[in-house]
């Protein structure tokens, strides 16, 4: 009853496409996992719905969130420069990374400087995206996850299966066995309270002693030079308060211009993510420890990561991908995610958001298959708090992944056309030819209806679960003509 085994020493970053089907199948064949995903997603959907009792109000708030994110993106390079200037003025050092390797180098360099072999980590999906833990281990350093869910997943040698609730694929009995086995001096207990207290005890010692703390960023405010962090547990505050050095890492799209732009986004984020009107802590960090202050890190660093975001930005049709505030609502409502869970995707970000963002990070070569794993039911687009048209983006990405020759007017996406299959491409050009020439079309319709008995019974994937497609006895044109003549 365990999740698909993922080898934790192998960077998952570079292994999306192949294996997606087999990993999905493994989960689909596991009734326990399916039940726990279903239960968890039902729970999150109900909690979200309870926070938005008035549809008109919800739509007004979504419009606001969408407008703020679109506005911020429309001024992105300027806002990044403003953010950098204000952070620097406040004493926070800013670093830029074009790709995961650069982000790893910057962070490893900072740890060397701090002479810290270990860092404690608050929840950060961007650190997962850049494979930070693996990179540190490879350099003889280490990173300890301190968010309870992340801690559990790390103990198990797995990956987060959900961007908000990383250990959602684990039952408390599995966690109880894991703790008894991996945490020294712990006996088996399946009381959730006791398990959490065990985690608390272990991690408190680490917060106390570790010299470097890492966190993500939910919003970065340009006008004041402020990093905002949303959390319930207090580990984010620990990581950004107790160690001597705080390193924050985030994607370049997270910036907003003004302080007043934060509340609507925060309201949408917490309500959409976990169905909370607000989280226990909302932390605004604007400076390292100042003279005369008695606590707080002496150094604060921000690492701004691109990793494919500029590709999405450069194309107007894909720019809305960057509106995302990482609430996870699209996965909670996705009929595919609910059935296969987060690990099957093989990418850092699973579910609908993973399908639309990963192609820019990893290229369409490996992610082209993911964009087809959608029924296009539209649930993701309907719940997205910042109105990202996810289904349309999926269709666009499908087209891009199979498109033909380069188009001179738009910049290419990474891996564009890499999923083009000669047979399919031929079938579609014939199809379009038929529809463009009435004579050919009539000939085709006539022969298809007359020779319908020749339609193959075995139509590959189609007939695996469906009856074969056989042309009708008469075409629609013929039927209409007969009707008219009666």
């Amino acid at each position, binding site marked *: 009853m365990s999740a698909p085994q993922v080898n934790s020493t192998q960077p998952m970053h570079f292994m999306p496409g192949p294996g997606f089907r087999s990993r999905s199948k493994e989960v689909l064949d596991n009734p326990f996992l399916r039940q726990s995903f279903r239960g968890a997603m039902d729970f*999150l959907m109900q909690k979200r719905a309870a926070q938005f009792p008035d549809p008109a109000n919800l739509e007004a708030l979504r419009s606001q969130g969408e407008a703020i994110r*679109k506005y911020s993106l429309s001024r992105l390079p300027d806002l990044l420069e403003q953010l950098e200037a204000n952070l*620097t003025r406040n004493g926070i050092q800013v670093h830029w990374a074009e790709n995961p390797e650069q982000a790893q180098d910057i962070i490893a360099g900072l740890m060397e400087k701090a002479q810290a072999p270990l860092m404690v980590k608050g929840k950060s999906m961007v650190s997962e995206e850049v494979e930070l833990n693996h990179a540190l281990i490879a350099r003889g350093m280490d990173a300890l996850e301190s968010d309870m869910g992340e801690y559990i997943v790390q103990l198990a040698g797995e990956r987060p299966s959900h961007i908000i609730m990383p250990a959602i694929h684990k039952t408390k009995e599995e966690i109880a066995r894991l703790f008894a086995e991996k945490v020294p001096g712990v006996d088996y207990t399946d009381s959730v309270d006791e398990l959490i207290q065990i985690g608390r005890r272990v991690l408190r010692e680490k917060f106390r002693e570790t010299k470097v703390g890492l966190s993500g960023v939910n919003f970065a405010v340009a006008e004041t030079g402020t990093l905002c962090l949303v959390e319930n547990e207090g580990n984010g505050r620990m990581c950004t308060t107790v160690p001597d050095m705080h390193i924050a890492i985030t994607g370049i799209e997270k910036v907003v211009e003004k302080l007043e732009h934060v509340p609507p986004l925060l309201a949408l984020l917490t309500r959409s993510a976990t169905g909370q009107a607000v989280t226990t*802590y909302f932390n605004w960090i604007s400076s390292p420890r100042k003279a005369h202050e008695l606590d707080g890190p002496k150094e604060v660093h921000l690492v701004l990561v691109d990793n494919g975001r500029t590709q999405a930005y*450069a194309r107007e049709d894909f720019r809305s991908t960057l509106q995302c505030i990482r609430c996870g609502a699209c996965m909670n409502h996705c009929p595919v995610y609910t059935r296969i869970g987060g690990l099957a995707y093989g990418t850092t970000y699973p579910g609908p958001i993973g399908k639309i963002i990963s192609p820019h990070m990893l290229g369409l070569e490996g992610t082209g298959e993911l964009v087809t794993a959608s029924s296009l039911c539209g649930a993701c687009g309907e719940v997205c708090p910042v109105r990202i048209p996810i289904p349309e983006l999926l269709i666009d990405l499908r087209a891009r992944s199979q498109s033909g020759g380069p188009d001179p007017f738009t910049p290419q996406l990474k891996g564009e056309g890499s999923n083009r299959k000669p047979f399919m491409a031929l079938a579609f050009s014939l199809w379009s030819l038929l529809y463009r020439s009435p004579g050919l079309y009539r000939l085709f319709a006539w022969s298809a209806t007359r020779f319908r008995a020749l339609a193959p019974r075995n139509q590959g994937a189609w007939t695996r679960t469906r009856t074969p497609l056989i042309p009708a006895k008469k075409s629609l044109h013929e039927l209409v003509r007969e009707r008219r003549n009666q």
Partner: protein
Amino acid sequence: MSATPQTSSARANILARLRSKPVPPLPQPTVQVWTSQMGDQPVEVLRQSLKSNLEAAHAEVIQAGPEGWRATLQKVCQDQGIKTLMLPRSLPPTLDIAPWDQGPALSRFDQPMETLKDSLFNQVDAGFTLAECAIADTGTLVLLSSPEQPRSLSLVPPVHICLLDVRRLHTDMPTALAREQWASAMPTNLIFVSGPSKTADIQQTLAYGAHGPKSLIVILVEEDLQ
């Protein structure tokens, strides 16, 4: 900027890519829609809303009695079995507590955290702080870090006791941001606290005291805390 050569070329490349296609700037959005739409309300309504929201988040909210908040604080400590209470480095003269004879042993956050780690992490039962203001709509206390009131006081000890002047209640977050004018001078760390630390990471079961305080006790007064 302390950029290494690598990050400075990364910076230039990223900004150049973002500017490779000019994006027409959109008009500045006006922030007006809010979830509560409570508008301005009398203090009593705000107090009720704050109280019910905080209680829903598992915090305790106590109105200071007629004998004053110090007596209330002593009673809270007695009821909770708090034997050691840590105060901010300094409290305004009118608010000072020490010395007292019946309450818990008092200490102050009067040294750099590095020196105090042992008592802060392992000995102190509760931390005592003054709230800057609060937000009724979400049941949120606003704390500022300052040389007088270090931020770990509301984070590390297992109980957090917070004093709030109810006349400093704002309806909702946008109102608080606008009226407090933080945009012109952000403190080192502005912390919004809406309950005790919690997690639902194990099978969506709520548990309190994940990494921060297991309990949050708010004492309401009507008295200047500045």
